Structure formats: C-alpha cells, structure tokens
C-alpha cells in the first residue's frame, strides 16, 4: 500500500492560492473588457443633421449629400463583412467592387466570413467592421447589438440620405415592421426581391417527358393517372431509356425543397413552412393546423400506397441534400418524377400539376412567403463615415445607381438593354464568363419591388416554354394560395421566454411528425390505428401552445 504524500500545508496552500489568483485575475482582466465598450445610442445623429446656422457636410465634411459620382470628396476605405457562398466563388475578385470605387470613391475592404460560427463569434465578441452585407445572423444577435448601441440607427437618416428606402417603407408598412427591432427603430436594411415566379412558387412538379413519350402516356392530370404512370415506369424498367434501377417517384422526405408537401397540396391540404415544418397554415388571420384534416389522411395513404407498391424507393428517407441533387441532375435520368426549383437545363423534365385528387378540394401547389431577407445591410457604430455608407446602400438599391449591375449582372452577359427595359438573359452560362463578372445577387441589399419589376425589368423567359417563368405564369399561378402562407414573424414580437418555448416545441413537434408520418408511409405503423391519437400526442408536446404563441406574435405583428 503506497503511503500518500501527506499534504504539506504550505506547499499545497501556496499552489492552490496561486491557481485561484491567476484564474481570478484573468477573469477580472478579461471579463470587464467586454463591458468596457461605451454604450451609445446611435450617436451619429449629431454629425448627420445639419445645424441651423451653418450647413455642414455630413461625416465631418467628407460626404456629398447628393449625387453618386462621387459620394465622397476624398477617397475612403470601409471594412465590410460578408458571408461566403460556395457557388459565388471568391468575392474579392468581383468587378463590382472596382466599379463602386471608381464611381463613388469608396473602397471596400472585404472580410469574408466563411462560416456561421464566425458570424456568431463576431456578434458575441462585439468585434465589428464598418459595414456588413449579407451575414444571415440570428435575429437575437442583431437585437442585442442594437440594444448595446453597436448598430447605427437608420430612421433619422433615411429621409435625407436613403430616399429610395424611405419611400419603400412608407408604401409597405408591413415590411417596415419586419425590419424594425425591439424599440420600433430601424437598424438594418433588407434584401427585397419580388419576382413572382421566384417568390410565389416553391417547386415545380416535374415528370420525365422522354419516358412519358416512350410509354405512350398523356400528361397525368389526376393522382390516379400519376400512379398509373409510375406503375408503367416500374414495369418497363430496363427497356428503352428507362434504366433497370429507375426510381419512379423520387422525393426528399420532409424537405422544404423537393419534399412530399406538394402531394399534400394536390389533395387540397395546404401547409407552409415557418419556424420548422409543423403542418400549419393561415386561414383568414388565424393560424391553424392540418393535423386533424381528413384529406391529409388521404394524402398520406396515397403516399403509403405508392411507397409500398415499390413506386418510391427507401432512398427518400436516407438521402442527404448532396445525394438528392446528384439524383435529380443525373444524366441519364434515374427517376420518373420529382419536385424541384427548376429543370437545371435538363430538357426531359416537363412540368405537371397540380394534380386533381378527385376529392372535390382545390388542388394547390406550394407558395413561398412574400417577404424580405432581413439584415442585408448594417452600419456599425465605429464607422467614421456612416452617411457615406448609407448613401452607398441607397445607390446599390437605385435603378439610377448600381442596382442592376449589382443584382442582375453585366450588360451583354446577363441582360440586354432594350429601350427602357432591362431584358434578362434566360440562361447564363456562369462558367464561361469568369467569376469576377458575377452579380452579387442576394448576397447584398437590393430593392426589386413590384414597381421596379413593372417599370424596368423584362424577362423573355416568361414567353419561352419549359422555363420556370413560363410554367409559373401559365400553369401554377392560379393554384398558388399565397393568402394561406403564414408570414414570418420576427423574434422581436416574442419575449425571450416565449422564444425559448417556441424553439423547444417546434423542434419536438417537427421531429415527432417527421418520424410518425414516415412510419405510416413505410407501413411500419398503421395509420388507421394512430391517426386519431396524433393530435393529442402532439398537444402533449406543446403543439397547441406553440400555435397559440405563434398566433399571439402574429396578432402583434398585424396591429
């Protein structure tokens, strides 16, 4: 038995005290550092407003109150944070920044945040640049930053220095509400893109036109026709251009994109995805659930029938996003039908639907919310040139500024100027033109509202068959129930306690629905036995409380 070193009191005590002291000191030194930042409340108003006696140019005399070329009368540099998008390539090489610098005199030093972690870290450590473009931050992070005075309040500056946005908010008070943070003030500008074929429709429902022709079948108009088509695909697998391992109907289960929700919609069961899936929809100002809707049962049984007849593969449950994309873009095609945003240039995908399920309910197809992407542009308090920054934001949203270059791209490549209108080139081969000529698209701010669209933009694609634009206008538009969409409700309309509860209920209910419906589809569980008890089980997890909370927030939003 080893004799333990009996504690030598002095040595021990010395070590313990040293450790504690170090920790304490370190804590004291680093701790208050985070609270040492002075809390100001949008203290730039002083420099922005002109005093009555002598007009002073804003930003200490650097910025011109009007005109874009230039914005500043001496060249300045601003640090700008922006998140990374894999398909966008290297932002720093884009031509647009040079364009901005020559026109306005503002040089932008980009800090590309490659990961969500970095964005969270930036807000948590309060280590901010001058401005930020798209960051996709958590709403609570932005609210906290606004409360701490890290963000410049934009309201008082909008009228004079960002008239385009001022007008927009006056015409669209709901959008203004979205943008406002806790205290009803505006601290950031959103990204607005209201092209109806983009925002009003979620996915197109595609069918393999080549296979349809080979099987000598007409375009399916009802759910029964569709099943017929699928059966024929399965029977003829291995013949013609239908491969032996063809998957007749391929979806990405429970996914917002390419999921089974459009099948539900064909049965007249409409649901939208807000804060998770959860099978909710809007009915004249009331948020309701589809869980007790008997038509939903029919829709699920239809899917179960398809699955258990081997017309859908188990891969619908196991594939991840990458596998999904590989399958839908596979050449030669491997599936007979799927749902996705557009046909990706594969000419055999023909749009169909919505299908008539024969239950005398209207057939829908999913819409998206007409909203704005928040926090697309922010100005931080250490910025020496807040007015110049705001004027830059205005210019990027102005048709007479760089709106079209920034959003659409370059003349001759992305669009052609035909008279007054900017005619969008239908399919741009982005590999050919080089990365530096890409438009920034939805990575920054833009104001493409209904006015701009009708006045300036023209899309030849709307007249070309088999494009998303055409299919939307001619096929889907009348089936898209935008009034049933629940608008997104910003976190500001809930207390932090309510936000916590919503996060918990939404996660739990979504997981439960996802699991349960999956077992019904595979047949591992019996829908007849479990259907009636579903709502009760969900309510035990807080489903009704969740709906009530959402309703409360929505009412607050609308008042």
């Amino acid at each position: 038995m080893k004799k333990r070193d009996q504690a030598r009191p002095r040595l021990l005590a010395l070590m313990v005290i040293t450790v504690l002291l170090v920790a304490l000191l370190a804590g004291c030194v680093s701790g208050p550092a985070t609270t040492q930042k002075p809390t100001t409340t949008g203290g730039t108003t002083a420099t922005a407003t002109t005093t009555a006696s002598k007009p002073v140019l804003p930003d200490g005399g650097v910025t011109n109150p009007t005109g874009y070329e230039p914005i500043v009368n001496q060249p300045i540099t601003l640090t700008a944070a922006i998140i990374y998008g894999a398909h966008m390539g290297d932002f720093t090489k884009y031509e647009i920044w040079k364009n901005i610098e020559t026109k306005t005199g503002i040089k932008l030093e980009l800090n590309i945040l490659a990961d969500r972690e970095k964005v969270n870290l930036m807000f948590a450590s309060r280590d901010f640049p001058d401005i930020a473009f798209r960051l996709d931050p958590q709403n609570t992070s932005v609210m906290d930053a606004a409360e701490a005075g890290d963000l410049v309040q934009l309201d008082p500056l909008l009228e004079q220095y960002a008239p385009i946005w001022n007008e927009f908010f006056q015409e669209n008070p709901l959008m203004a509400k979205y943008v406002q943070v806790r205290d009803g003030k505006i601290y950031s500008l959103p990204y607005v893109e209201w092209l109806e074929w983009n925002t009003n429709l979620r996915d197109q429902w595609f069918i393999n036109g080549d296979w349809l022709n080979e099987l000598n079948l007409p375009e399916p108009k009802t759910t029964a026709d569709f099943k017929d088509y699928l059966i024929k695909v399965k029977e003829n697998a291995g013949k013609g251009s239908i491969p032996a391992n063809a998957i007749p109907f391929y979806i990405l289960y429970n996914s917002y994109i390419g999921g089974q929700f459009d099948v539900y919609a064909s049965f007249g069961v409409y649901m939208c995805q807000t804060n998770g899936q959860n099978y909710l929809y809007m009915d004249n100002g009331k948020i309701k659930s589809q869980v007790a809707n008997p038509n939903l049962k029919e829709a699920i049984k239809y899917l179960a029938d398809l699955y258990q007849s081997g017309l859908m593969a188990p891969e619908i449950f196991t594939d991840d996003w990458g596998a999904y994309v590989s399958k839908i873009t596979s050449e030669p095609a491997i599936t007979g039908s799927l749902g996705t945003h557009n046909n990706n240039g594969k000419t055999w995908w023909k749009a169909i639907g919505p299908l008539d399920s024969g239950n005398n309910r209207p057939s829908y197809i999913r819409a998206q919310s007409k909203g704005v992407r928040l926090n697309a542009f922010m100005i931080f308090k250490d910025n020496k040139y807040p007015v110049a920054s705001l004027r830059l934001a205005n210019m990027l949203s102005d048709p007479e500024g760089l709106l079209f270059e920034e959003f659409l791209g370059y003349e001759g490549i992305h669009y052609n100027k035909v008279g007054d209108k900017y005619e969008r080139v239908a399919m741009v081969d982005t590999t050919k033109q080089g990365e530096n000529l890409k438009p920034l698209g939805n990575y920054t701010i833009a104001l493409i509202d209904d006015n701009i669209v009708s006045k300036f933009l023209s899309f030849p694609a709307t007249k070309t068959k088999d494009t998303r634009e055409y299919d939307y206008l001619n096929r889907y538009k009348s089936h898209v129930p935008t009034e049933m969409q629940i608008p997104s409700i910003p976190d500001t309309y809930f207390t932090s306690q309510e936000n916590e509860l919503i996060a918990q209920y939404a996660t739990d209910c979504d997981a439960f629905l996802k699991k349960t419906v999956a077992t019904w589809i595979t047949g591992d569980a019996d829908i007849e036995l479990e259907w009636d008890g579903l709502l009760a089980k969900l309510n035990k997890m807080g489903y009704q409380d969740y709906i009530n909370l959402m309703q409360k927030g929505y009412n607050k939003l609308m008042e």
Partner: protein
Amino acid sequence: MTTGTIPSGTNRPSKLKQRGHLGSRLRKFWPLYLFLLPALIYLALFHYAPMYGVLMAFKSFKPIKGILGSDWVGLYNFARFFRMDMFRTLIVNTLTLSIYALAAGFIFPILLALLINTCVLRRFSRVLQTITYLPHFISMVVMVGIINLLFSPSLGMFTHLLNALGIIEGPLTLLLSAKAFNDLYVWSGVWQSMGWGSIIYLAALSGVDPALHEAAMLDGASKFQRVRHIDIPWIMPTMVILLILSCGNLMNVGFEKVFLMQNAMNLGVSEIISTYVYKMGILNAQYSFSAAVGLFNSVINMALLLSVNALSKKLGDTGLM
C-alpha cells in the same frame, strides 16, 4: 498485476529517495519545475484565463453585458434541461450509444495490435498497418457519404451483393432501421479508428524484451500462451490508462457523425443530447442553455473518470493521478 514475469521497468521506489525536508527537495528538483513551466504557462493562458466562461451556464447570457455581467440565473438552465420531455430519451440514447462505442472502440485496436505484432508475414503486416490507419483520414462527411452509398437501400453495393447471394430480396433497409442505427454507428467507427488506435499499442509492444519471449519458448510455451502472459501484461498499463481516458469522454459521443446519420426513420434512437441542443440552437441562439448542457456532460465525464481511476488504482495500482 498478473501472473508470470514482472517486466523490468516497473516503478519501485528506490531506497535512495526518501522524504526529506521540503526545502531541500525543492532545491533538488527545481530544474524539473522549470521543465514544467512552458506547459503551465500554456495552461494558464489558454485554459484557465478563459475558465470564467464556465459561468455562462449559470447566467442568462447577453453579449452586451458579457459573461460576467449577465444576470445570474443559477440552476435555471439546468432545470430547463432536466424538465424537458425529451430529457430521458436523450440520456438513454446518448448513454447507449457511447457505452457501446466505448466498449467496441476500446477492444478492437488492442486485438489488432496483438495480431499484427505476432504476424509471421512481416511485409504483409507492415503493409496492413499502413492500410488500417488510412480510414482515420477520411472526414466525417465523406465517411457518412460512403456509408450511405454502400448501404443505399435500392442502389447500394450491399443490396446487390445480398440479392445476388439470395440472402435477402429487394432493398436493404439497414439504414432505415432504428434498431440497426447503433450497430452501424459503432462498427463504422471501429472500421475507421481501429488502425489508428492500434498505433499506441504497437509502440508499447515494441518495448517488450525479446529475452522474455525466448525464455518462454524454451519453457515450451505456445505462441498463444506467450501473448497471454507476456504481451498483454506488458501493455496492461497502457490499456488501463486509455480505458480511463475513454470513460472520461463518455458523454462526448460525436455530434457530427450522429447528425449526418440521422434520418426520419431512426430519430427515436439517433437523437442524442448534442444533436438536439444543436437543432434548438438553429431556431434561436441558446448560449446559456448549450453551456449548461455542456457543463452537465463535463461533470458526468469527470465523475466517471475519477471513479474508474479510483477503481483501477484499487485493483491494480495503475491510475491517472
């Protein structure tokens, strides 16, 4: 310890070094404290200075106020965690998965090392060594991607193989099965880390004195007996230490791999603490809550490590501290 020869090198306190006056011992050992200095400085700067962050679990964190300035809420976050409906499921899933993974992940590297060490085909075993540690380099995303491809229900290689052999008909539903989730997770983990884990044991085994083996052979011991009575006791301390360290990692069962392997059909079993907290965090930043859950995990880990450590000291004399 075990029967048989006690390999030389065991620590036996020499009679030369007995307790002396503290002052003289400090004077004697001072170069050693100097050796310790770099690591201690590193520790102080990067581990102990930020240690106050642990308090985040007890506060309602707001970045403006910083961690020390945020409001103290005591055990509120912990209570919230314990009161969740999902709590019991999460704990059961996490523990089942980790204990299973720990047991399998502990044993196989040892077996592999012993097998390689006694392989008669020298060149084959060296090539094999290199091959077995390669899977360690595959990132988790690609690893799960390969699993999904090979086990793909209707399109995967195993489906074709099993159909051709007539063992099953139609798609292989392994990936969909909740019951098979733990097995798939653990054995793919063994596949990936078995070779890498055997490195430390091979290094330890390289220190076995061949004279012992020769003596045993002279005594007529078979290869198997030699492995049992010489090799295994020799690496026993390494085994024990690594076991203790693994126990100290019990609650940290890998977030990324489980998250990637989850699907609608196996959620009942595959939802573990870290994935659940992550999902909640997507909807709403939950700093304090995640900190509390993290602290809970750490406390359990540490308690486990100290218990297993104490147990091993009682049984055999080897321990961490």
